[in-house]
């Protein structure tokens, strides 16, 4: 292209152009576009698929600037800061970055700084900073809370935010946004660069990462923030970029990489059948194994750790060829995960069974297939996972979906359509959490004294906090200072105090030290170390970590699968779970609730449409098609805008099965609220069960005569919800996370680390007391917001109720329907865990199916 040859010459200094040439490359258009943005001093968001040279595109402008920079007489601070969501990624990028620096002889110092970096290196980095520092949001928060932060960052020219699409809608993203605002104050000329995978709405990320000033509060209209420049692009800018998009200009230009070829995605229908129910896809394991054998390296993605352990076991049972198949999930010891990753990088593995822990991470060129076991749950996550296969831009990635049951078959088909149309799940704009803000304000006070009003203006240049009101801001500052209690008894114990100069600072050096030990916004469930039991009741080698909840279902003597082997629980001492190997034992497989995704609204919508469109059934396997036809003949197939509700007797009970297709979290919340209502109506509800597609409630009395419009009225989300939520364990869990992040409770204290166990107990006591005496306390507001959005998906229940208003299709049946069969199998599963359930299920399933299909 003539144009790009011209801009090449203008944009790339000879040394860089030569380097590309000697490698036999040409700089890609989006890489040059990023250099152009830098020359114009514009913030930029680059969206490109994996393998598109995205990281180099992010660093290229900094490398050029550093190479052209005249030598300094005095030492300088950091020039470019790179932030990655994973520390492994920061280390890997450091390694990759060294290649061009070395080959071009640039003399640029690039170093990573993570939790694993040694103390002496960290100290040296503070005294003589590298030109490029690669780190994580948590390490950045720590550096920002350091008293030398100003000197370290005042020369900062560029911050590169990698995999920004995974960070921005989270509390870690809130923390990062606040630290970006801080950095911009310290270094007003700082340029922000975001690197993202394909997303549905890039404007959300542009808005999130923009430094534009806050939305005016009633107090008055603040002036334009730093860096919010004019919108017009200079002439000659590449065609693939734009500066605005109809919304007001946020000062962040969008650069699009080449889209790359469409991935090739298939659905595996093992031996032409899809099971009625289940989540493990056990039926297809033999075929999955054969497929792994035929490929170079396969990533087998699952949705939960339990599924990962299960699939790994099943594959090894079939592994007569002793293929190197490994396991990777968040509960394995870090060293073990690193070993798997290293073996993978060396190309030694045939397959890795993994959870979302490998959604992101370092590039493995050798992966030529991604298998998704069980339903994808979201189109965006699927695209990310599929992108892990074949990190070469010119070849399509290849993926196979393996649905575990019939509803999942519909979901897989919907996901394939979505990927083909390149339409992805949408996210809502992010509102920053108060607990994170509290942590940040404390961090600011630890770094240097701050002015209340100036910090307010600065905080509101952070995307998620742009609409923060002065009232809420003051409440957070008061919380940081005195705890924010109506009873003002802690005024003398303030953590931050206002000095005679009008500035706020940390009260004591001890407060500062303790804050720095507790920085971060990742609160994982309390975890316990799994260790091999030694003589004398002591714990030996650590084999991994489990969430506390995992143990709730296990008793000493019980066997379970962990890290790919069968273990017997010996006992628990402190934070250690002691186990002994139990090879060959039939494990009592505990259900593992952790990290389950719910189906996205976007996919659910597609599933509803596909189900109601008989023409779309032709792509489905015969047994699934027959199942849909039987449902049509014996009950109802609802229109896409309708919600099906079936009532029927079964055994000695009466059932109501509802099919909103709105994900397990929303369903569980709705079922809980409906149960309360049915109880008040004297129906005598006995229990309920939910999955991603439907919920079933059973009761003593029939429910076909109920006023359904009344039952599903939106007022359900009022008092009923609040009363239920405040009592629920979910609130206690959310409160604990907020208490930890905000600094009310300390995870680490000088000298001793609190075990998760102790923390669990004391935050519950605090929650109970606070709820009774100050129900509107900042942290309770924060915990309620978290529980509503993250755990029980209240917003989605609200949308569900609004959507189905006047659209409930009631089928009063005299026996269960084909659609209800999977729900009934879930009921069986809930009651009798382990092998007994499978036997029961096998017998019961035949009867159920006979009843539904007769």
């Amino acid at each position, binding site marked *: 292209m003539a144009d790009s040859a011209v801009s090449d010459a203008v944009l790339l200094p000879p040394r860089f152009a030569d380097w590309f040439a000697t490698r036999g490359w040409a700089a890609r258009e989006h890489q040059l576009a990023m250099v152009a943005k830098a020359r114009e001093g514009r913030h930029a968001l680059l969206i490109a698929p994996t393998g598109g040279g995205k990281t180099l595109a992010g660093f290229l402008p900094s490398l050029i600037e550093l190479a052209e920079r005249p030598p300094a007489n005095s030492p300088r601070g950091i020039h470019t800061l790179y932030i990655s969501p994973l520390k492994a990624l920061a280390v890997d990028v450091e390694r990759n970055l060294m290649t061009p620096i070395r080959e071009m002889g640039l003399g640029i110092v690039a170093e990573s700084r993570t939790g694993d970096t040694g103390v002496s290196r960290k100290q040296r980095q503070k005294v003589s900073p590298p030109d490029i520092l690669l780190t994580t949001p948590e390490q950045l928060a720590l550096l920002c809370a350091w008293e030398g932060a100003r000197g370290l960052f005042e020369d900062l020219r560029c911050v590169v935010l990698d995999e920004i699409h995974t960070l921005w809608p989270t509390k870690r993203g809130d923390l990062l946004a606040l630290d970006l605002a801080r950095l911009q104050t310290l270094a007003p000329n700082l340029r922000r660069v975001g690197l993202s995978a394909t997303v549905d709405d890039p404007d959300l990320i542009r808005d999130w990462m923009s430094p534009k000033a806050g939305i005016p509060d009633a107090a008055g209209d603040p002036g334009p923030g730093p860096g919010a420049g004019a919108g017009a692009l200079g002439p000659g800018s590449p065609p693939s970029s734009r500066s605005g998009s109809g919304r007001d200009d946020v000062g962040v230009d969008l650069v699009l990489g080449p889209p790359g070829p469409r991935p090739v995605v298939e659905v595996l229908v093992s031996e032409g059948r899809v099971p009625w129910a289940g989540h493990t896809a056990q039926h297809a394991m033999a075929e999955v194994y054969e497929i792994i054998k035929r490929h170079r390296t396969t990533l087998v993605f699952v949705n939960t750790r339990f599924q990962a352990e299960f699939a790994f076991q099943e594959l090894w049972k079939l592994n007569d060829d002793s293929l190197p198949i490994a396991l990777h999930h968040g509960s394995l010891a870090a060293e073990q995960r690193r070993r798997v990753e290293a073996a993978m990088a060396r190309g030694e593995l045939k397959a890795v069974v993994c959870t979302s822990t490998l959604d992101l991470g370092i590039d493995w060129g050798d992966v030529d297939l991604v298998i998704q076991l069980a339903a994808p749950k979201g189109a965006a996550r699927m695209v990310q996972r599929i992108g892990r296969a074949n990190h070469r831009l010119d070849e399509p990635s290849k993926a196979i979906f393996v649905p575990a049951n019939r509803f999942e078959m519909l979901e897989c088909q919907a996901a394939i359509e979505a990927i083909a149309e390149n339409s992805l799940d949408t996210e809502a704009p992010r509102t920053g959490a108060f607990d994170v803000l509290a942590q940040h304000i404390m961090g600011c006070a630890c770094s240097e004294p701050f002015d209340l009003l100036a910090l307010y203006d600065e905080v509101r240049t952070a995307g998620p906090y742009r609409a923060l009101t002065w009232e809420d801001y003051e409440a957070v500052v008061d919380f940081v200072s*005195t*705890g924010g*209690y109506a*009873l003002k*008894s*802690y005024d003398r*114990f303030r*953590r931050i105090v206002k000095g005679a100069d009008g500035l706020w600072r940390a009260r*004591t050096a*001890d*407060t500062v030290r*303790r804050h720095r030990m507790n920085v971060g916004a990742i609160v994982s469930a309390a975890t316990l170390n799994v260790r091999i039991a030694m003589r004398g009741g002591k714990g030996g080698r650590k084999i991994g970590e489990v969430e506390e909840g995992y143990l*709730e279902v296990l*008793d000493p003597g019980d066997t379970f699968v962990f890290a790919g082997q069968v273990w017997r629980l010996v*006992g*628990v001492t402190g934070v250690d779970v002691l186990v002994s190997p139990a090879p060959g034992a039939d494990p009592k497989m505990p259900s593992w609730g952790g990290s389950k995704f719910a189906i996205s609204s976007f996919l659910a919508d597609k599933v509803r449409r596909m189900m109601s469109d008989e023409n779309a059934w032709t792509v489905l396997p015969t047994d699934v098609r027959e199942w849909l036809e039987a449902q049509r003949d014996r009950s109802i197939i609802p229109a896409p805008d309708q919600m099906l509700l079936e009532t029927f007797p079964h055994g000695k009970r009466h059932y109501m099965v509802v099919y909103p297709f709105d994900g397990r979290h929303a369903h569980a919340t709705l079922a809980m609220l409906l149960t309360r209502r049915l109880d008040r109506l004297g129906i005598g509800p006995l229990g309920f069960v939910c999955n991603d597609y439907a919920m079933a409630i059973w009761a003593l009395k029939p429910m076909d005569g109920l006023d359904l419009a009344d039952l599903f009225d939106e007022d359900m989300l009022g008092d009923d919800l609040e009363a239920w939520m405040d009592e629920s364990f979910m609130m206690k869990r959310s409160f604990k996370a907020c208490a930890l992040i905000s600094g*009310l*409770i*300390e995870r680490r204290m000088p000298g001793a680390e609190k075990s998760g*166990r*102790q923390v669990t*107990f*004391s935050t519950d*006591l*605090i929650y*109970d*007391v*606070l709820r*009774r*005496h*100050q129900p509107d*306390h900042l942290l309770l507001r924060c915990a309620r917001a978290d529980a509503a959005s993250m755990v029980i998906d209240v917003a989605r229940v609200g949308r569900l109720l609004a959507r189905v208003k006047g659209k409930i299709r009631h089928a009063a049946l005299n026996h269960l329907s084909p659609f209800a069969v999977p729900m009934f199998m879930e009921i069986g599963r809930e009651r009798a865990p382990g092998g007994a359930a499978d036997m029961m299920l096998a017998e019961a399933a035949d009867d159920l199916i006979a009843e539904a299909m007769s």
Partner: protein
Amino acid sequence: MTFTASLCGGVAMAVNGTQVILKASGALYVPAADALLVADLHFEKGSAYALRGQLLPPYDTRETLTRLERAVDACAPRLLVFLGDSFHDGRAEDRLAPDDAARLAALASGRTLVWVVGNHDADGPRALPGEIIEEMPLESLVLRHEPLPGVQPGEVAGHLHPAARIAGRGGRVRRRCFVTDGSRIILPAFGAYAGGLNVKDAAFAPLFMGRPLAAALGTDQVHAIGWKSLVGD
């Protein structure tokens, strides 16, 4: 050991021959002496943490007081005995909010308060009414803060904050509890912020000859639970 359910959800039994009632509030009532016993209130634990920079909600004292007033109102005893660690530390009494201190003092009207001292409050209160004592005989019982090892017939103590964890259908629950073998008894902690120590912990082993029984505090009821149903943490 024999138990009978008492009115108001408690459990009636004999400890070393003296009839006592284990109340759902966590208090122990001794009818023969018309005495109510409570252990480990840890008043001002919240402000003790605040002193060190952790600003826990300052409502623990009034929460504990409300519970205590309710327990006292329920049986209007002549004698109210605190079994030690009533205050979280030596300076806690000075940190009491004036209205909380007044409520506490009001409990002394029409009855005698006895402050058995504990390891957290070795000197007892200075300004509040009541007698301060190391240990105290009552009927065939002896009241002290920290249980002594070996056989101690009639000992009523606190200090250990016993809690029971029970595995049942539908999950597990962890509750504060009494622990007794009919010869001695350990009371649950009464304070709002007092944590609990699992009765399966080694600290309880030297105190009982056989397997003791845990009486767990339900919402309005005390549940006697056999050793076999208890699980460790």
